[in-house]
């Protein structure tokens, strides 16, 4: 018989099971009556098995025990369960991760990281607008879930953008904060909303208020001009122009405020105006009183009191506003915002971790690539970057569709990802060909990232992925060009014989290695023949011809005659083909860039390298001519 059991997650991280295994309040009694609880964690999912367990064996008990039905039930309980209705969203956010990582592989500096960051934010916004749509659609049924989620994503976006502002835009302590902060607040927490704004406008017209005494309405007119005439940073061409205008304006506010002193304090309209002017002249107390949140108070202070505040002084202002709004009532989001502004990244990350796992994994990933996590290394015993990514990925493994995404996350962790990957991959039951292929592909990709090319090739060959095998061969070729080291190529020895991996580039690599072996053992004639055959059979990629031709020079100049006339002609033909090719410069560049991976080669270096190679080609031509003469004499 099946017992319907519901498990519910409540506040304070308690998973409740309903009905419970034991009768309420009777657990002590049950414990005395030989019962305990047994558990076993699922081999790889966020799931466990639990059941009532007998502590002693039947034979060890003095009285026979009665066994109840609930003693014999086994329960499967999941945690971190991502429900199916959220699947699409999770996947959408995942895709960003995948695309994003591709960009990161190139490690091309802050500019690209910023692009990546914006990309993430856009996708959060897209997701948010879908959620907000759901909230509106379901306004009758009170869709609490979508609402909560929308709020969480709003927070996530706000923190993400703030991170961007302080680490991409405001990088100097002297940078001014006002513009960025106000933009940030308006974008993430628009207040009043458009609807509220409309109602405010239509509601009252203080200037023409019938009941106002004369001097109040005069003041109102003046104040209206004051508000309209407030200088705004983006309307001014320079900071100093803005500063001057703002000071003038501020002085006018203060004058009006002073002029109003001793006025009709009992009159409601008048006292409203008085309050308004005190806000405009930047009175801290009034601002705190009138603001609905500390974020809003910060904004008002930036507008009316400290418009030119810099990054260096901003944290003090934020602390003041935050402090006067009651630290006890603030949320993890508030604290995270303040920590970020204070530059306390360690605390910021800990708080992000309380907000959302997806968020903390991706924001630390961004911070990591910006090189900002290094300073935190000593603070925490774990590698924060991979800790959060692997923790998040582990929550996805359980899901019937998201496991693939989880493995991709693991694959993106260079330090520990491989071990996670291996463990999880081994445990995932292979139920279809497609699944098997995908797993092999992931493992191969990971191996190739870790320079375990041999194993990667074997994996790729299992699924006939010649494209990736060629890619590995090209990597090895580039590695040779840059280091002159061919020891890497040894890895392919272990896999030769699997004919499916005999792609042309792999074949070239293997034969080119043989050339070097022959050369080393001074079997020059054989080496020379092999070298020429690489050119004549088009085994060598065109971009590699220059290298081969230069390799031929010592053979041409040696004591022993290596190349016959035909072979010499072939070398000359190839040299000519390069020299007259419209892509000649590309071929040179290819060698120069391969020698300098990850760096942009300065122009003067490029020019001198090209000059040097041109010179070597000249040497080759001369050597070919001399060799041709020698060969002709020998042959005839």
């Amino acid at each position, binding site marked *: 018989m099946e017992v319907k059991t*519901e498990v*519910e*997650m409540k*506040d304070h*991280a*308690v998973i409740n*099971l309903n009905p*419970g295994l034991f*009768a*309420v309040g009777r*657990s002590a009694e*049950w414990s005395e009556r*030989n019962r*305990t*609880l*047994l558990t*076993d964690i*699922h*081999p790889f999912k966020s799931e466990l*098995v*639990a059941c*009532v*367990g*007998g*502590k002693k*064996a*039947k034979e060890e008990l003095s009285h026979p025990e009665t*066994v109840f039905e609930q003693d*014999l039930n*086994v*329960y*499967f309980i999941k*945690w971190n*369960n991502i429900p199916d209705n959220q699947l699409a969203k*999770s996947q959408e956010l995942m895709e960003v991760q995948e695309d994003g990582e591709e960009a990161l592989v190139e490690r091309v500096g802050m500019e690209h990281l910023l692009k990546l960051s914006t990309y993430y934010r856009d996708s959060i916004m897209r997701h948010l607008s879908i959620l907000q749509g759901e909230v509106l659609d379901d306004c009758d049924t009170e869709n609490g879930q979508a609402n909560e989620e929308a709020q*969480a994503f709003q927070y996530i976006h706000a923190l993400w953008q703030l991170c961007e502002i302080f680490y991409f835009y405001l990088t100097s302590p002297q940078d001014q904060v006002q513009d960025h902060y106000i933009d940030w607040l308006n974008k993430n927490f628009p207040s009043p909303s458009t609807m509220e704004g409309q109602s405010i406008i239509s509601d009252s017209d203080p200037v023409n208020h019938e009941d106002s005494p004369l001097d109040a309405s005069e003041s109102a007119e003046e104040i209206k001009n004051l508000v309209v005439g407030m200088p705004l940073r983006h309307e001014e061409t320079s900071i100093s122009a803005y500063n001057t205008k703002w000071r003038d304006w501020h002085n006018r506010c203060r004058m009006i405020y002073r002029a109003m002193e001793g006025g009709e304090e009992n009159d409601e309209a008048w006292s409203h105006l008085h309050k308004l002017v005190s806000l405009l002249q930047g009175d801290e107390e009034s601002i705190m009183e009138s603001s609905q949140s500390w974020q809003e108070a910060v904004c008002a202070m930036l507008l009316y009191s400290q418009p030119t505040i810099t990054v260096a002084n901003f944290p003090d202002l934020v602390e003041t506003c935050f402090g006067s709004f009651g630290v006890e009532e603030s949320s993890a989001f508030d*604290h995270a915002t303040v920590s970020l502004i204070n530059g306390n990244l360690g605390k910021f990350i800990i*708080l992000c*971790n*309380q907000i*959302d*796992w997806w968020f903390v994994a991706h924001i630390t990933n961004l911070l990591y690539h910006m090189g900002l996590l290094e300073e935190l290394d000593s603070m*925490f015993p*774990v590698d924060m970057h991979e*800790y959060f990514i692997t*923790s998040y990925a*582990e*929550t996805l493994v359980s899901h019937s569709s998201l496991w693939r995404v989880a493995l991709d996350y693991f694959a993106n*962790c*260079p*330090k*520990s990802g*491989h*071990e*996670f990957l291996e463990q999880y991959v081994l*445990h995932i*039951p292979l139920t279809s060909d497609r699944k098997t292929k995908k797993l092999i592909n992931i493992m191969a990709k990971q191996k190739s990232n*870790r*320079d*375990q090319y041999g194993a990667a090739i074997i994996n790729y060959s299992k699924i006939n992925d010649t494209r990736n095998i060629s890619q590995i061969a090209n990597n090895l070729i580039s590695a040779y060009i840059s280091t002159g080291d061919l020891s890497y190529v040894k890895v392919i020895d272990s896999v030769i014989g699997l004919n499916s991996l005999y792609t042309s580039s792999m074949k070239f690599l293997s034969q080119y290695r043989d050339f070097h072996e022959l050369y080393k053992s001074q079997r020059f004639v054989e080496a020379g023949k092999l070298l020429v055959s690489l050119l004549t059979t088009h085994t060598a990629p065109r971009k590699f011809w220059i290298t081969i031709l230069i390799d031929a020079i010592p053979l041409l100049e040696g004591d022993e005659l290596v190349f016959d006339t035909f072979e010499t002609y072939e070398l000359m033909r190839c040299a000519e083909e390069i020299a007259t090719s419209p892509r000649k410069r590309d071929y040179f560049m290819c060698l120069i860039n391969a020698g300098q991976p990850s760096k942009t080669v300065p122009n003067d270096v490029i020019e001198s390298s090209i000059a040097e190679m041109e010179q070597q080609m000249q040497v080759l031509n001369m050597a070919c001519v001399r060799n041709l003469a020698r060969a002709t004499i020998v042959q005839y």
Partner: protein
Amino acid sequence: MASKSFDTLHDEMIHDAQMDYYGKRLATASSDSTIRVFDVDAESISQTSKVLSEHKGPVWQVSWAHPKFGTILASCSYDGRVLIWKETAETGWTVIKEHKKHKGSVNSIAWAPHELGPILACGSSDGRISLLTFTEEGVWEDQMIDEAHPAGVNSVSWAPAVPAGAITKPGSNSAPITLVKELVSGGCDMLAKTWLWSNEKNRFEQSGTLEGHSDWVRDVAYAPNIGLPRMYLATCSQDRTVLIWIKDASSPDQWKKTKLTETPFPDVVWRVSWSLSGNLLAVSCGDNKVTLWKENLQGNWEQVSEYNEKGAVTTGPSGSQTSGPKQINNSVNSAPPAGTAAASTS
């Protein structure tokens, strides 16, 4: 939060329930002397094979071998015997080995990490631990560790075969890793002891004594060590405490002891179980709770969640209607609570 349950149809109390390597099958051991094997999938749980009833007394534990050795299940019993079962398509489950060298109840069994080959460790009330190995010659050999815990062995567990910190360097595929062959046992002498294989002496030698509990040690469990430069070991006891023992790769002879909680658990702690990556520990206790623990960023152990009988009080039939899954909430709640005091959100 999805959960499913089913009736095992055992006649007496259950002593163990273990999932296989893929989480597709569940074996339960009972005081009714039988073992039952169930197929588990997303929709249903079904008992497809016959009841395994070769034991003559209560079955204490079952242990699934790594699938590379076939579908193999070991069981140990109050009858003093260890049975090794193999399932084949033709004959179903059959006993392929009966191990009866123990002179008392066999309380705990554990298969070694698969890298070490098919080796089963068995702990008995006779105070001894036996190691049962299926050799390359195709025969079973056994070896005894005498007087391991003279008052009785309650639990055995194997250390991960790959030493901590061995493969943390990317691209380190050159030198073969020396595998670790070590196990831990917990006993009625209130101790946990580690045993390391000695190639010279061709036997297990005691390599450490873990003192810290004040009553019988009930369960011991080495954690898998993915991506960490240290080794974790959990022990739980009738003294109602759980201890976490940590050993750094840099100082391999020193276990550092940490209490999982300062206040003891409300009742005897019966089982400790690690997740695949070793970063989550499940503790089950006689007070009817399973709690999940995770080491936080500062190196302290914090409770991730617990599940208990409270649901019966707080939610009636309608309560279950509101228990809709909330992804954001769940991830907040189950995130490792890594906050400092200042990070408190309440």
